[in-house]
């Protein structure tokens, strides 16, 4: 089905491209980054991002191929971020193909934004449009007044993309010994039974904007299952299999203007989410010595992910603060995650010299672990689409989502030309 949808959209777009001269836009970007710790160059990347599109009042298509060149010319990554066909009617739109679908009101946090999986090969440091992967899907949207109903069918599941082993962004694996990872069970075969469905109703009004969302999906993030455990000369050898699990999701998001401020909120209940159990060295040792069948090392729980946020402009500075809570219902003490985990984000932005120079700070703060990621940057707009950015990624803390990268503090420079 996935191939069928891809095939249809590709054929139609090829046909359209033959009789119409598409518009061509995009950008070329150079990106260099240096680790503050040892001064080594951690990133040397050139990117060409193209957007070809054309259409009329009824049909439109878009193709978004990209090329990344890493470190030297011998390492190229070529791909298609989006490739889709649109069909417009007065009160509904249909989009078929590989597409990014972004829902929710949160910034840099993913709560009801559950369709397009994430590409975390460079943790959360890529530009937003590069973090979100496209999904091959069919989306139909119905419109009435300022409201819209979206229905999405995803015939093939796409998982979150994590950094490869050896990457400076590879996350710490939370097990007493370095496990062997067997990826045999990670892929979900495309079939009707394995497809995902999502729905959203969104309304824009003067009083409030809100979204109601629901879905039956695969968890983009896998949990590990124990495949084998044996004692070797070097100690216990742990082989794990990452596996994705089904879950149902329901949630809402809103924003409301209040006297020049904007109050934002978002919450989702994940029903049947699998969560990893904690494993201490002693537990591992007793597992090795016991003759019992291999136990499950995850538990199924209901889980709520919520956010409350305020946006305002104070003395010309755009400010945004978000408080995020993750809560596990019917909590079990043996889980690796805490029952309640909190995070905050803070964004400050100011422009100078008629918006040619911009200063920005985006900060993630992990409240439970006392860690943080600070992302200050300074940008200069030369005009005509040419821009330069100088920034830093500063990780603080010893543990947690951000503290684990404490040695990856980085300075970077980007120059980008849009055309």
């Amino acid at each position: 089905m996935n191939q069928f949808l891809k095939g249809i959209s590709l054929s139609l777009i090829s046909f359209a491209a033959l009789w119409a001269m598409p518009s061509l836009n995009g950008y070329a970007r150079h990106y260099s980054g240096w680790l503050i710790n040892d001064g080594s160059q951690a990133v040397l990347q050139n990117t060409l991002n193209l957007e070809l599109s054309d259409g009329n009042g009824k049909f439109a298509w878009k193709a978004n191929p990209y090329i990344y060149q890493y470190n030297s010319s011998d390492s190229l990554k070529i791909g298609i971020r989006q490739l889709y066909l649109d069909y417009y009617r007065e009160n509904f739109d249909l989009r078929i193909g590989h597409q990014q679908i972004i829902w929710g009101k949160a910034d840099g946090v993913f709560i009801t934004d559950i369709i397009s999986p994430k590409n975390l090969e460079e943790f959360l440091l890529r530009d937003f449009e590069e973090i979100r992967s496209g999904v091959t899907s069919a989306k139909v949207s119905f419109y009435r007044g300022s409201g819209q109903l979206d229905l999405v069918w995803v015939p093939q599941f796409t998982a979150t993309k994590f950094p490869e082993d050896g990457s400076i962004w590879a996350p710490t694996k939370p097990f007493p010994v370095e496990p062997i990872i067997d990826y045999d069970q990670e892929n979900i075969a495309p079939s009707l039974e394995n497809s995902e469905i999502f729905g959203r109703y969104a309304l824009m009004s003067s009083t409030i904007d809100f979204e109601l969302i629901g879905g039956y999906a695969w968890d983009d993030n896998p949990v590990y299952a124990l495949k084998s455990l044996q004692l070797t000369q070097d100690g216990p050898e742990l082989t794990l299999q990452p596996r994705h699990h089904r879950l149902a999701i329901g949630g809402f998001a809103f924003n409301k203007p209040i006297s020049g401020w904007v109050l934002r909120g978002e919450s989702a209940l994940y029903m049947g989410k699998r969560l990893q159990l904690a494993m201490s060295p002693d537990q591992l040792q007793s597992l090795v010595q016991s003759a019992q069948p291999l136990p499950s090392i995850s538990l199924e729980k209901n889980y709520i992910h919520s956010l409350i946020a305020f946006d305002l402009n104070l003395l010309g500075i755009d400010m945004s603060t978000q408080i995020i809570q993750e809560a596990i219902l019917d909590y079990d003490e043996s889980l690796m995650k805490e029952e309640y985990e909190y995070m905050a984000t803070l964004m400050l932005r100011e422009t100078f010299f008629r918006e040619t120079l911009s200063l920005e700070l985006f900060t993630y703060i992990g409240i439970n672990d006392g860690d943080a990621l600070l992302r200050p940057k300074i940008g200069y707009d030369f005009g005509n689409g040419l821009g330069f950015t100088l920034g830093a990624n500063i990780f603080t803390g010893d543990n947690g989502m951000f503290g684990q990268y404490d040695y990856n503090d980085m300075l970077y420079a980007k120059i980008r030309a849009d055309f």
Partner: protein
Amino acid sequence: MKKRIIGLTIFLALNLWAQNPDGHSIMMKVYERPTGQTILSDLTMSLTNSRGDLRERTIQQFLKDFGDHEKKIMFFKAPADVRNTSFMNWSYDSGQDDDQWIYLPALKKVKRIASDSKSDYFMGSDFTYDDLGERHPDKDDHKILREETLNGENCYVIESRPKDDDNMYSHTITWIIKDKWIGLKKEFYDEDGEHLKTLNIQKYEQISGYWVIPIMEMHNVQKDHRTRIEMKNIKINQAVDDGIFTERMMQRGVR
């Protein structure tokens, strides 16, 4: 007899006003000058700094008057780094805060933005959001300073002082063309009473029976930079579907 006296009083009052209109009435005439229910235009905003460096932004704009409120949507066409960005504003006669949204194609998301910063400059230009909107005359006290001829037009020169304390301008002086009720020139004075900016109308013409201003320039005299706005392809009272002022169109754009 009583009716005759009332009628005579009204006639004399109107006659007196025609000869000696007050500042508020003149500004109301400008505010109430018919502009059409819908306006479509392609807008070029040229920003020049004190060194003469030029930056241009092009925008396609749709505006519709719904009686007690007005909706405006702008689609950015150039430069390339802002292409496909859109901005929507709903403003209300009641004085309630404007509703504003922006669609950023990199985020693929429509964001609501805080709108109490009417004194913020629009897209790096010399126009604030307030300058680009229609300020209700009731928000200011108006006084006729004099009558004089400017660019061959007989004008009233009106001084307007805001009633609220937190306005970014201490006062403005506007040259209003008699009979046409168009502001031909406007000087803006900062909170210290120093001359900050001058708006000059460089072209005005009638389109479909309505007076419109296709070219104007704002000159910041303190920093010596300028913003020129030129509107082309102006269409007035052309049918504009209400559905254009929605999240759907902000994301999709117009072709």
